[in-house]
């Protein structure tokens, strides 16, 4: 076929060899990707498909809005809690409920704990095997590994040659057993892996350290929310009442011991981010300095709603400010309003749903979706055994959200580009410092826009955000203690708990900085029940199929023009897709007005 030029500036050519990756592993949920390679093994067309749909929002219809958080929390157990937080915010927005300052701070600490946990687990347990070769780690000299560790991060205590020798022995025996477990059928002789053995061994050690530590981080959720995954939330505040002294403090949810426990966990996150995570990403990135592809629209067309206000309900105090940047114009940050029906809209022209008019997008408050699973005429295989998809037709369970018709990328990199462009002191210092370190290690002289608009830039921004969140938590914790010291122990506002106090009809929006990007929930309440509920989540933005105008989404854009070492070993494809940290259960949960099964179910 002829080359198609998309309105957002990409040249698609699907004439070359078609390569299919299904399932894409080391993500949350299920996805598939198909690409076309030219004769030089360079990706010239990319097709990203969400391969699951759960219909959670239809399940919410007619339920109690105060219960919604638990349902939507189960959209995702990896970014656990962020949907619950966004949900209680949407309900409180609709009902004009303002939560106490303590509740705000506790929710902030929980949200940032999730951010750190999710980013750490993503980098070490979902993403690292795209960069790190555990088999190659067997060739490392433990002494040289120790030297490397001390150079990369002098403050990290676990750095002795004996420590690395023990880990190497354990991995060696594991691999020699012939039962490779999660490492089985990896691409360990692919030249796309470029770390020296010592860096591989150091990273494998940190894979195991991070696995041990991540279970400590989330204990903050257990203190405030009772469990993790899926801590409990509450419309109006938080359920963990404070009792610092006096009768029965020991049995209260929060007392001095519990708060000390939380502070100890925050400190662990601060230390791990500064001594291990950020240095690791910079060290690994420096060995891949010649692989700065994968940017797509990463640092160019980005969006976030803004997050982490120092003053509750005052968006101007957001520590990661929101907005929209298009086409790399960092000097023009446009404001975003999730309530404006003209701004955020979802399209289904290439999604397995039906609209009355599929050339038009719908704002989430008015969102409708009816499943319509059908394959295009050029697809290969059968309806239940897909060999190749036809991207000119419908090809994904993900919808296509757009901002004023524009495809944008969301995520930690988007937040960092927005904060950097708007002059955030913390972010500017952090980006410049880490870029300096990268340039020094790699012997390069890259500017921020060039370095960040890459797979590596996306991965680095996530590490930097993790560090920022752990630092912000120290402030939140100090403020919590100070506020309690000032005599304020309130944790919930119950004035409008009773549905009898609610208006007959109300609608609200909640937003949050989810680990994978901008998250919004839109709710309509009628007669005390949920009338409509819509979530537009990060992976829906990033993983979206083409829209009716032909704009490709962020996943597809990022894969374009990437060189691939071996056509049948998708290391480079996985590396770039994983840099987004895809979450497919999140992306595909939409509302069905006329789901086919509904007709058969008796209304209770």
């Amino acid at each position, binding site marked *: 076929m002829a080359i198609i030029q998309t309105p957002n500036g990409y040249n698609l050519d699907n004439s070359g060899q078609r390569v299919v990756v299904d399932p894409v592993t080391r993500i*949350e949920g299920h996805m598939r990707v198909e690409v076309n390679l030219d004769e030089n093994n360079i990706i010239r067309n990319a097709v990203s498909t969400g*391969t699951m749909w759960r*219909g959670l929002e239809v*399940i919410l219809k007619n339920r109690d809005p105060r219960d919604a958080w638990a349902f939507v929390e189960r959209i995702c157990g990896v970014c*656990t809690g962020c949907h619950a937080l966004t949900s209680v915010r949407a309900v409180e927005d609709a009902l004009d409920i303002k939560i106490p300052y303590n509740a705000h701070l506790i929710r902030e600490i929980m949200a940032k704990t999730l951010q750190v946990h999710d980013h750490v687990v993503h980098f070490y347990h979902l993403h690292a095997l795209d960069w790190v070769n555990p088999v190659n780690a067997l060739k490392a000299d433990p002494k040289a590994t120790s030297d490397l560790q001390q150079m990369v991060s002098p403050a990290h205590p676990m750095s002795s040659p004996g420590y690395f020798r023990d880990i190497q022995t354990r991995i060696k025996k594991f691999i020699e057993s012939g039962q*490779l477990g999660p490492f089985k059928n990896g691409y360990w002789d692919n030249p796309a892996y470029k770390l020296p053995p010592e860096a591989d061994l150091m990273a494998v050690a940190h894979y195991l350290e991070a696995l041990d530590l991540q279970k400590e981080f989330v204990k903050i959720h257990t203190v405030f929310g009772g469990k993790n995954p899926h801590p409990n939330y509450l419309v109006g505040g938080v359920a963990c*009442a404070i*009792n610092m002294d006096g009768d029965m403090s020991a049995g209260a949810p929060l007392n001095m011991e519990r708060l000390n426990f939380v502070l100890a966990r925050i400190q662990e996150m601060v230390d791990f981010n500064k001594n291990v995570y950020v240095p690791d990403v910079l060290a690994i990135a420096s060995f891949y300095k010649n692989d700065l592809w994968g940017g797509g629209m990463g640092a160019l067309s980005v969006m976030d709603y803004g997050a982490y206000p120092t003053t509750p309900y005052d968006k101007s105090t957001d520590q990661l400010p929101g907005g929209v940047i298009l086409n790399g114009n960092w000097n023009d940050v446009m404001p975003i309003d999730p309530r404006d029906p003209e701004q955020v809209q979802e399209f289904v022209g290439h999604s397995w749903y039906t609209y009355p008019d599929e050339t038009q997008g719908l704002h989430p408050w008015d969102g409708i979706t009816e499943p319509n*699973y059908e394959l295009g005429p050029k697809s290969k295989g059968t309806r239940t055994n897909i060999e190749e998809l036809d991207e000119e037709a419908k090809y994904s369970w993900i919808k296509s959200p757009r901002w004023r018709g524009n495809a944008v990328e969301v995520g930690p990199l988007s937040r960092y580009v927005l904060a950097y462009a708007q002059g955030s002191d913390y972010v500017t210092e952090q980006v410049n410092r880490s870029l300096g370190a990268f340039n020094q290690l790699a012997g390069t002289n890259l500017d921020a826009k060039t370095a960040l608009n890459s797979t590596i830039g996306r991965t680095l921004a996530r590490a930097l955000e993790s560090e920022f969140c752990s630092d912000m938590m120290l402030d939140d914790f100090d403020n919590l203690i100070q506020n309690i010291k000032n005599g304020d122990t309130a944790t919930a506002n119950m004035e409008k708990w009773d549905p009898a106090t609610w208006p007959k009809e109300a609608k609200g929006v909640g937003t949050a900085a989810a680990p994978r990007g901008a998250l919004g929930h839109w709710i309509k309440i009628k007669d005390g029940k949920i009338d409509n509920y819509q979530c537009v989540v990060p992976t829906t933005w990033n993983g979206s199929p083409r829209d009716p105008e032909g704009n490709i989404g962020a996943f597809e854009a990022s894969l374009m023009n990437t060189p691939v070492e071996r056509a049948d070993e998708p290391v480079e494809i996985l590396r770039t897709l994983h840099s987004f940290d895809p979450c497919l259960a999140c992306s595909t949960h939409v509302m069905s007005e006329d789901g086919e099964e509904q007709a058969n179910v008796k209304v209770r």
Partner: protein
Amino acid sequence: MTETFYEVMRRQGISRRSFLKYCSLTAAALGLGPEFAGKIAHAMETKPRIPILWLHGLECTCCSESFIRSAHPLAKDVILSMVSLDYDDTIMAAAGHQAEAIIEETIKKYDGNFILAVEGNAPLNQDGMSCIIAGKPFQEQLQHVADHCKAIISWGSCAAYGCVQAAHPNPTKAVPTHKAIKTNKPIIKVPGCPPIAEVMTAVITYILTFERFPELDRQGRPKMFYSQRIHDKCYRRPHFDAGQFVEEFDDEGARKGYCLYKVGCKGPTTYNACSTIRWNEGTSFPIQAGHGCIGCSEDGFWDKGSWYARLTDINQFSVEGNADKVGGTTAAVVGTAIAAHAAVSAVKRAQNKGDSK
């Protein structure tokens, strides 16, 4: 298939002393008492690592996330030293056809001798294509692997009961493992959204140690963790018995840790180990953190009324107004009897097993 846990752990640099300590902790986690540590050690010294194929359907991945939170044993020790987790799309290095090839390789090499672990469930609507793996319905993959496995673990409320996507009106017609496929393989259900991390690893450890499922109740749940209600062992139970209740969140009772029954706690009807084992290495559990239990390990809990609606269907309480005076009579007696029965049975079976060897 000649390797044993012990050999693997030894070769991975773990001392015999650490290994025995590990066996003691495992025995304690299983509620078996110190005399069983030797039995576990013996089992682990003589048995090979069993392959696990861990499949994911419609889900949120909270079960996998919970699993990696396990403190005893650590998730890394389970993965590196106890089992061979050959397929798990959440953490495996391979993707696409290299990933799917592992399933066939495992079936060929270990036909009838590997464990199928299921997280999430299969949708039947849209021709099963609401959950696609390698271009085909997830249900096909599930049936195929089930046909060749030794036994099935249904992790979490999705695989055990259906969970959130199966809540009314269940738009994708999502069904739990035992309804999605035809199989005569034994299925153990480990419900919860998610299950407690240490419960998950204890179930694995038990199966590996005793080479059989733990004793199951009529629903297929292990009695050792699901035979008692949260309420039966709740640290706030004395307040229930004394008629001291939280009337509203953040009131005086909430600050004193009073019983959450009146703000909707489902502890009295929920069978799980949250109030005994607790969450995240025993750090806390929902009631201790001030929110009522939402009953996430019960079949169809999503459709049993608001989290904040007071339970009115507790048989022992007859009517809700009686809650204050009913206190801990019937419920406690029933709970204790079940627990005692389970313990005795477990010990007997374990002894029989030992004798027959």
